[in-house]
């Protein structure tokens, strides 16, 4: 093991913090410099992340790579245990790519009330928190990263948000804290009930790998698993968000500044689904099996419910926010099947949703920047006549989001539905096929609301009131920030192996270890 192998993910994860420190000491008059420092640090972190992805061993290696396990808070047995596997890698890389693109976008757009320094500093801290969540293999470390995300996002919404930002930011904060408290309790429960006496000096462990081994071997009693699964699942469910814990999301998204929405939808929601895959399922397999039908049910409800809610939205951003609830429903449905196909579908769905919905929020941000309204009725159609390139990109991404095969949105959802045709043994097949049918109906409704939205925003004749405004079409900064995502949408759709191939070994191993594989 070279030094690079041990330190690479730590470097990538904490580079943004270093960036935040550098930016903090800059005089605030140097606004341009600060913005380019943001690009520099997120870019450097992304380069390291990509180097990790290149150095990653994709063949036949299901364990952790780039692993570092060293003492941290020895008093409570918490260790600095980080590593990366095929489940983490796609999300980890996506975190750096999306944040880098947000930094590029920020070189032009800093939302009211300005304060670029604080804005970028928080964004960089957020990046570290999100990235850290995907590589932490110690529950305490995981929790610290998890909560680290909360604070910058709270301020991003609360300070740089739109009219109703205070309500939205506090709702976001309290709701998530509410969830994390239960999650933390679950973690503590796992710790105190774990027994790893073979390790020197300690009886209990926060280590996720050890807990997986212990839990997978049936170390936790059934009653304990049910209670603790409920607790951690509640914490994750709020974050995903699963129906009916989703009501913070539309408010948070609607009020958040553009890059807040991009990162919220693109990465943060995946922390919840990732938590299910990484912690809840393997450590508490019995709990997972018992709760799977309920998770599937909530997922199926979310898909249909969100699509219906989307039809009723008048605010473009709120519509996209609700669509996230539906898409995450597909991810959760895949997870609930407890099959390799389902979980691989979920991972694909996470990445695809990050790329597509992140991109949709970019579009809505840029539309707002021109129209100064997000009301569909105020925009009033004809955007294709006004800003044809922007409108065309918006249409392309919307069509990707409604699940067109050949684009990124398709494979995650279709494989999630396929997996619910045949859930893990022990699950009620008829029930899951019912969820599948609900999901299928959801895809029709999803097509309906997206096409209706496009009709009302893009198509038709430009209203008189906008004719006197000369909006600029795509700006250079928008091309730079968006092109990787647009290409990504196409590449993921045409060559889904990028994600399926990466996650395959790790997912198979994960399910095999807990004895619910299939």
């Amino acid at each position, binding site marked *: 093991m070279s030094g690079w192998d041990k330190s690479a993910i730590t470097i990538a994860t904490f580079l943004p913090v270093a960036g935040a420190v550098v930016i903090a000491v800059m005089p605030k008059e140097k606004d341009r410099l600060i913005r380019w420092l943001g690009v520099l640090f997120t870019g450097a972190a992304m380069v390291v992340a990509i180097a990790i992805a290149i150095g990653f061993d994709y063949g036949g290696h299901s364990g952790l790579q780039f692993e570092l396990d060293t003492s941290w808070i020895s008093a409570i047995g918490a260790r600095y245990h980080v590593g990366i596997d095929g489940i983490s890698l796609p999300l980890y890389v996506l975190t750096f790519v999306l944040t880098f693109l947000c930094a590029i976008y920020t070189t032009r757009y800093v939302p009211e009330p300005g304060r670029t320094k604080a804005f970028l500093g928080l964004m960089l801290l957020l990046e570290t928190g999100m990235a850290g969540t995907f590589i932490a293999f110690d529950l305490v470390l995981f929790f610290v990263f998890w909560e680290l995300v909360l604070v910058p996002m709270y301020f991003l919404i609360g300070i740089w948000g739109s009219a109703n930002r205070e309500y939205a930011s506090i709702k976001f904060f309290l709701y998530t804290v509410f969830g994390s*408290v239960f999650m933390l309790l679950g973690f503590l429960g796992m710790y105190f009930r774990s027994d790893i006496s073979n390790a020197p000096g300690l009886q209990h462990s926060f280590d996720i790998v050890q807990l997986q081994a212990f839990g997978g071997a049936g170390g936790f009693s059934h009653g*304990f698993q049910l209670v603790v699964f409920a607790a951690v699942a509640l914490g994750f469910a709020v974050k995903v968000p699963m129906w009916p814990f989703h009501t913070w999301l539309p408010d948070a998204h609607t009020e958040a500044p553009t890059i807040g929405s991009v990162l919220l939808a693109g990465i943060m929601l995946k922390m919840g689904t990732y938590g299910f895959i990484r912690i809840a399922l393997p450590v508490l397999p019995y709990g997972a099996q018992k709760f799977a039908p309920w998770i599937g049910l909530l997922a199926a409800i979310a898909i249909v419910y969100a699509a*219906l809610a989307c039809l009723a939205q008048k605010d473009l951003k709120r519509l996209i926010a609700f669509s996230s609830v539906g898409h995450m429903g597909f991810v959760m449905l895949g997870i609930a099947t407890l099959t390799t196909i389902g979980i691989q*579908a979920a991972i694909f769905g996470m990445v695809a949703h990050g790329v597509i919905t992140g991109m949709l929020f970019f579009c809505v941000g840029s539309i707002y920047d021109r129209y100064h309204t997000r009301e569909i009725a105020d925009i009033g159609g004809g955007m294709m006549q006004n800003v044809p390139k922007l409108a065309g990109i918006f249409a392309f991404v919307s069509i990707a989001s409604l699940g067109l*095969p050949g684009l990124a949105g398709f494979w995650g959802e279709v494989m999630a539905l396929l997996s619910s045709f045949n859930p893990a043994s022990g699950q009620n097949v008829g029930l899951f096929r019912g969820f599948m049918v609900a999901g299928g109906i959801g895809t029709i409704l999803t097509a309906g609301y997206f096409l209706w939205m496009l009709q009302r925003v893009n198509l*038709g004749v430009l209203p008189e009131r906008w004719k006197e405004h000369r909006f600029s079409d795509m700006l250079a900064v928008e091309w730079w920030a968006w092109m990787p995502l647009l290409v990504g949408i196409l590449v993921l759709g045409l060559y889904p192996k990028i994600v399926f*191939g990466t996650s*395959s070994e790790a997912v198979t191993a994960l399910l095999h270890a807990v004895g619910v594989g299939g």
Partner: protein
Amino acid sequence: MVAEAAAAVGPGLTRYAWVVAVLPFVSAPLILFFGRRTPGRGWIYGVASVGAGFVLSLGILWHFVQGGGPTASSVSWFQVGPFTVELGQYVDGLTAVMFIVVTGVSLCVHVYSIGYMHGDARFTWFYVVLSLFTGAMLDVVVSDNLFQLLVGWEVMGVCSYLLIGHWWEEKVNSDAAIKAFITTRTGDVPFLFGIFALVFATGFTTSNIQQIGEMSAAGEMSSALMIGAALLLFGGTIGKSAQFPLYVWLPDAMAGPTPVSALIHAATMVAAGVYMVARLFEVFIHADPLVLTVVSVIGAITLLLAAFLALVQDDIKRVLAYSTISQLAYMVAALGLGEAGYAPAMFHLFTHAFFKALLFLGAGSVIHAVHSNYMSDMGGLRTSMRTTYVTYVIGSLALAGIFPLSGFFSKDELLVAAYHDKTYWLLIVLLLGAVITAFYTMRMLVLTFGGEYRGHEHPHESPRSMTGPLVALAAATVFVGWLGFGPTNAPFFDWVFIGHPEDVSFVAWIAIVSTIAAVGGLALGYVTYVKQPAREPLTRLGPVYTLLENKYYLDDFYLNGIVYPIRDRLSAGVNWFNRSILDGIVHLFALTTRGLAAVVNLFDRGVIDGVVNGAGEGAEEAGGFLRYVQSGNVQGYAAILLGLGIIGVIVVAIIYVK
């Protein structure tokens, strides 16, 4: 014997079949990125790629003309869990024939559109989508597995959406586009589940169509699963090939430019549903006979319902659209006959593609000249548009099933198939359909080209780029029928067969009866419309006419019974539930916590720290959640965390003590 011949012939050009499908996917981005800078605004790439595809398709067909056998090859695309999805091609006679149809008609449409779309603001974009569509359809045709097929299937759908809504400034066009997409997707969802059922039946080992076919034939799949799969798959056909009860999108799809109607909504995409059943025919024929009965019955119902609707249209394109639905239903009904109907259905698909594309392009030429879709604005065009007129008559007579045009031969084979299968009820329906078809065809001919001109423009013949494809398609309409004529050894039936090629029998009395039906329908139509009656004679049917005029109220039912209630009322209900109930609970929870906070605060001030100035806190309590959450209320957070902390300690205690 066939196998020996195949060995002797070798794979030939079939190895490169995938190139035909890939070419349009190359030209589409070329047009998108370089089209505007190219002379002619980009059509050249499209014509070149499809033209090359057509030539290559002829080479591939040559392999089967020589008696060659099917070839297959594939590479791994990706793997998910235990399940591998491949990218591959399967080339047999059916593939080759479909290649000719798709590239041939597409080439005609590509050339024709140079003139028809001349001066269109989005000319270049039009060619991008045309290329993309052609590639997607070819992918469906060549695909050896269900997921690859599905990709092409859905991409066709989105291209159809884009082209129907090509003139999106008008809401009626974008409405039609959305209707087409959503209606077909309603069929695509069961189709997807049908694919799942088949993949499941293979034990997640493959989605390869040939392997699935072999497993079905060998009885390796459970019968219930196959019945379910076949019926679900057929849902895709009902949507894509516009069968009852989902045919309602196709007439509206006529809002798109006419070349699009010819290519997508007549010759190719709508035939994909029929093609898919043929491709998966082993599944259909080895499932319960009930499945085939359902297929036949849906076909028969659609055939008549659509033919009747074609009678009362004034829009020439809508006559053709209903006619398309009805003709597709002929194919579907024939497939329901099982093996006997397979090759005849494919033959009808083949001939119909040419003569219906011809009719649409002819109608486009007329519309181009008179600037109206309505036959009430036409009339007398036989003199001013000679080429269009002559070719249109050829297409019409083929549609009516008149010897020796292609429609006669293929319709005859369908009738013979029903007769040999002893499905006499279907034979009667097919014949009845033939009478109605001939009647509305003559009505359309007479109203468009007969009598005196009623419009306001000065109609003139269309440019060469438009008449050229008309002549080419008319020539095809005259000649391709002979490929399936029994006394000429019917080579078509040697290329396209299931099991083993059969001798195509020619039943003289059926040919005579079908000719009587066609001529009778034509004569009746001629007599009824020759005097160009000012008032539609069919209005004398009274309530029946009203029913037809309102399209059996099916569209009204869908809109008022399904679409609007969901879009406007159910969605509003969900939104209300979200705001009032779910968020209400959240707010109630917050309010309760705030009460708790007040108590804690009181305790805090009175007992622990009287120094803290709590002035004004009382006033804030009236302000609801929003006011509560305003910055500074640190005690609030503390209370929440404290409260949750207490709950937590209790929970942990329970867990730990247990």
